[in-house]
């Protein structure tokens, strides 16, 4: 059997994120997260809903890239204003790729640097992260697990709310936050440790615990049993090839990965 590509392993691992979600909008931002949601909808949880990444809800995931005659199977209109209607109702689970994540699960795509008035590096802005984080389930996809991404201290701009008791307003609890999984190029994590501490769930083959700890800027809960991330099945790999006919996922981990 051919060796399994790391990116394929990560995507198929990430595809499990929506397994028990029932009928929610699965949104994967970026090539890998979109493929993960697509694999899940096509094989693991057929009740999921997904868009064509433009303005329509589709009844089956749309393959990435040039369509060669494929017609998206439209189900209903889903322009941006209606996405917010869905978000605010809570029936969504998004998987996004933050620039920074901290020990609370707070995440940032806005800007990097200590001075908000003059960012060292301006990124996108907070986009829809604040609304996502307080309304529905969220998972993260991290192609480059390192202390630059998994930071010590808090993220430079908290765009996505996390399990941070200091930021709770009157009447709200940490249970109003729902962070599910963090899929990285080294491991699978969640925030299911004591007091929502980050917790290691599985290591990808060939990755050591020490390696993950060195790449993470905060302490993690390590259970006694840490599994190895399972191999994708042949059926999943075939599905992935069909959903990504132009192999756009090959570039997700950068050149040489």
């Amino acid at each position, binding site marked *: 059997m051919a060796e399994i590509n790391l990116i394929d392993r990560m995507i198929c691992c990430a595809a499990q994120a929506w397994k028990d979600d029932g009928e929610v909008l699965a949104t994967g931002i970026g090539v890998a997260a979109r493929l993960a949601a697509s694999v899940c909808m096509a094989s693991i949880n057929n009740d999921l809903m997904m868009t064509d990444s433009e303005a329509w809800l589709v009844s089956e995931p749309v393959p990435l890239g040039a369509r060669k005659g494929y017609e998206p199977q439209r189900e209903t209109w889903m322009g941006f204003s209606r996405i917010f209607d869905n978000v605010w109702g809570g029936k969504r689970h998004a998987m996004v790729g933050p620039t920074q994540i901290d020990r609370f699960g707070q995440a940032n795509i806005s800007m990097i640097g200590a001075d908000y008035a*003059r960012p060292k590096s301006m990124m*996108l802005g*907070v986009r829809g992260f*604040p609304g996502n984080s307080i309304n529905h389930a969220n998972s993260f996809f991290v192609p480059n697990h390192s202390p630059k991404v998994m930071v010590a201290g808090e993220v430079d701009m908290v765009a996505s*709310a996390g399990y941070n008791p200091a*930021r709770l307003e*009157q009447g709200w609890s940490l249970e109003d936050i729902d962070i599910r999984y963090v899929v990285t190029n080294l491991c699978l994590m969640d925030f299911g440790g004591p007091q929502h501490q980050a917790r290691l769930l599985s290591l990808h083959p060939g990755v050591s615990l020490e390696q993950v700890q060195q790449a993470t800027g905060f302490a993690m809960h390590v259970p006694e049993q840490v599994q190895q991330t399972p191999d994708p099945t042949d059926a999943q790999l075939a599905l992935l090839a069909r959903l990504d006919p132009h192999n756009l996922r090959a570039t997700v981990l950068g050149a040489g990965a």
Partner: protein
Amino acid sequence: MANKQMSAAAVVAQIKDGMTIGIGGWGPRRKPMALVREILRSPLKDLTVVSYGGADVGMLCAAGKVKKLVFAFVSLDFIPLEPYFRAARQSGAIEIMEIDEGLFLLGLKAAGMRIPFIPTRVGLGTDVLKRNPDIRLVSSPYDGKQWVAMPALPLDVALLHVDRADVRGVCQIKGPDMYMDDLFARASRNTFVSCDELVESSYFAQGDEARYVFWERSQTTGVVHLPCGAHPSSCAPLYGFDVAHFKEYAASAKEADGWQQYTNRYVQCAESEYLERVGGAEAVRKLPLPVY
């Protein structure tokens, strides 16, 4: 019967220094770029710009027109980071109000409904509250919780681009998404709309054409006939965004006098010359629609 047709110059003449300008569209999609270029040609300054930002924001920043920006993101999609916006942010050249995309929607909605705020959970637990001390929390009269009171975002002027319009201000968007353009039209004291095609009012009576009209003409102050007026952004289904032009624009930001060069070629000219310089209307109409 009102005839609202006017020129781009007449629109800009209605805008004063220090005004709050809302710009419709989303990132590189259906931006009123010809109207933005007309602002770039004018001496206008100290604008507060409210936009789901793309090159509209980048260009206005590069030209020093922006005092304050209200935004959730600024991006060209396939070029994720807008270079001139980044430069303005990183040099501290502009004041900002950075908010969530949905908060932005609620702010426009509140302005259109003539109410001071809309309560929401969006923003809780994030630095959006810390960085915007003007966004307050309110206690609900119905539960024991505090909620974010997203303030109204009233606009002096909204600038939009649509597929087609008549001179009475009936505006049609045939693309798959009207984005928040309807909310911009309602949030603003005056809304000026550029259109690719100017049509007779009878056009809208045909088939289901009227289904693609998303606000009443009472929300439209003026109509400007500007074919390809969204270029280099897209106006689906008429044309996609101009990838090559956006690449040239983004590359210009890497040169010391890049903005000056871009402006000399693409702004300091009549709109008809602009269209010639980007290949002509026929070429623009052939720009492929993006596949997401």
